[in-house]
């Protein structure tokens, strides 16, 4: 098992390096093709009153007068050494911006993941168990509608209902505007809506998957056998059917990272959550290449790690792969 795992991990890593190189090259090419002048972007309104000499000086300092290939290699060299450059919109080193925001994103996303898992397992199993009832129809109908509804729109409706109409929860941000320090209770209150919306938006596929998988499993002989032995319905569904229906879903989870990133970008933006995902939108609005490039690389790494996790889970969970090796 360890050998199979090591081989697969090595293969993945061998693929990761050229992949990251290709992503950096693609981003750099796009940035070079962009009609925006990074110096003017950096100066903003001050570009009008800045003398051409000063602008030329900035250009020289940033190495923008060098050949394109040299610029790319310098940038890549800096990246490899851990120097991600300075964010032009936030006027700070990129590494500082990410360091400050990454924790908030991880907090919100991991809470949403746990909530999504628990909720879709429970609700999906309920729908499968009560298959074709009005409850099942309601659940699957909501899941399909949720699949089709843009998450930012759902987020807005949720804000309207819970923050504006009922005034139960704050509409966004990390803390109360009047607060001077970070209070856990305050942050928790601000977290509920974004985490719930993110979890809800990601739950449809899993819920429908659990339902389908469980319905198929409930037809299997061993379930019939369990029922024939007179076991309680709950024991049959939870202990026998659900357990074997869950096997494939572990591997699907790792492959869902891209959707999770997409959801995080939109949800963090709507709720003004100060994470890295909303920073990518702010960077994009300001055409802030260093920050946007760093965040894109970070997301790519997350996707690759997710795939690796999925494959690892697959190797561990499926005895055929474990014994016969990765095909």
């Amino acid at each position, binding site marked *: 098992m360890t050998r199979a795992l090591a081989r697969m991990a090595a293969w993945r890593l061998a693929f990761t390096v050229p992949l990251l190189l290709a992503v950096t090259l693609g981003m750099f090419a796009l940035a070079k093709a962009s009609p925006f002048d990074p110096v003017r972007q950096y100066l903003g309104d001050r570009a009008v009153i800045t003398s051409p000499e000063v602008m030329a000086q900035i250009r020289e300092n940033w190495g923008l007068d060098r050949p394109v290939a040299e610029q790319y290699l310098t940038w890549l060299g800096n990246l490899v050494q851990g120097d991600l450059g300075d964010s032009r919109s936030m006027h700070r080193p990129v590494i500082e911006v990410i360091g400050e925001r990454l924790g908030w994103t991880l907090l919100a996303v991991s809470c949403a993941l746990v909530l999504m898992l628990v909720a879709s397992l429970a609700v999906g199993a309920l729908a499968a168990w009560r298959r074709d009832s009005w409850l099942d129809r309601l659940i699957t109908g909501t899941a*399909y509608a949720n699949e089709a509804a843009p998450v930012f729109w759902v987020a807005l409706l949720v804000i309207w209902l819970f923050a504006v109409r009922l005034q139960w929860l704050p509409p966004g941000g990390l803390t109360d505007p009047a607060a001077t320090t970070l209070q856990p209770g305050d942050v928790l209150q601000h977290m509920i809506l974004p985490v719930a919306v993110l979890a809800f938006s990601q739950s449809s596929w899993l819920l429908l998957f659990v339902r389908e998988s469980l319905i198929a499993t409930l037809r299997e002989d061993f379930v019939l056998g369990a029922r024939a032995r007179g076991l309680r319905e709950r024991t049959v569904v939870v202990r026998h059917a659900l357990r074997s229906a869950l096997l494939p879903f572990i591997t699907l989870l790792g492959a869902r990272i891209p959707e999770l990133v997409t959801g995080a970008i939109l949800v963090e933006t709507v709720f003004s959550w100060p994470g890295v995902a909303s920073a990518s939108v702010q960077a*994009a609005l300001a055409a802030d290449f260093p920050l946007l490039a760093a965040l894109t690389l970070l997301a790519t790494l997350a996707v690759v790690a997710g795939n690796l996790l999925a494959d690892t889970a697959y190797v561990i969970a499926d005895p055929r792969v474990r014994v016969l090796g990765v095909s």
Partner: protein
Amino acid sequence: MAATFPTARRTAPGRSRRPSRWIAAGLLVALALAVLLVPAVVQLDQQLVDLRAANQAPSLAHPFGTDEVGRDVLLRVVYGLRVSLLIGLVAALVSVTVGTVAGLAAGTLGGTADRVIMRVVDGFNSVPHLLFGIFIVALFSPSATAVVVSVGLTHWTTAARIVRSEVLTLRARPFVDAAVSGGSGRLRIVRRHFLPHLLPHIALASVLMVPHAIWHETALSFLGLGLPPHLASLGNMINDGARSLLAGNWWASLFPGLFILVPTLAISVLVQYWRDRANPRWRSELQL
């Protein structure tokens, strides 16, 4: 879960779902008619601002209410759907065309070309689509072209995978062997034998891509990175609506979103119906 035999309990579970495809088709036709006919009858002044009529709740005069600068939400929603549909169609066509060419090349050429193309597909799939799209539009000024390019560049991989795997199964079929023995070249096999068989799959991929492309356009516009802000598009309208939301104005956000939700759902209902029909074995398994 009584002792009755499952198939006897429900003779045709599909029956109860049948009306939904008529509703879906009806809704799509109604929306298509609205998008085609309304602009011919009522002109929309994209720049019009009427502050006296701002933030009015839905009424007979304005069935969907008015937004924060007094524009009629209903009329703008119809115009917005038109823009979004157009961009969605073009972007879907671009991505499916690129994907078909890539998938055909990979499946037909095989060997190194296949491996290289599939690694490129893996590479594109490793960057989250929305972030990639954001990256592209951020570096170019907000325009319909930037949105189409960004959706097309990020979504051709799905079609490429479908086409490649179909080509691989087609390659093993006897009539392809016969064509090769008869002296047909690669291009002729692709044109005469692969493409006709692939057409239903390509058509299905295109139909499924349209709502997805619309979703991307609206998401980018909502973030302020898509279409120019004054233009009535569904994403721009939800973005506008978000600003007056805290003042209790729900209609300016709700209705544009419904116009994304309804066509998307309708298309997925129809596609599902079509799949069930096209694959009787699957349908009979569903009825077990």
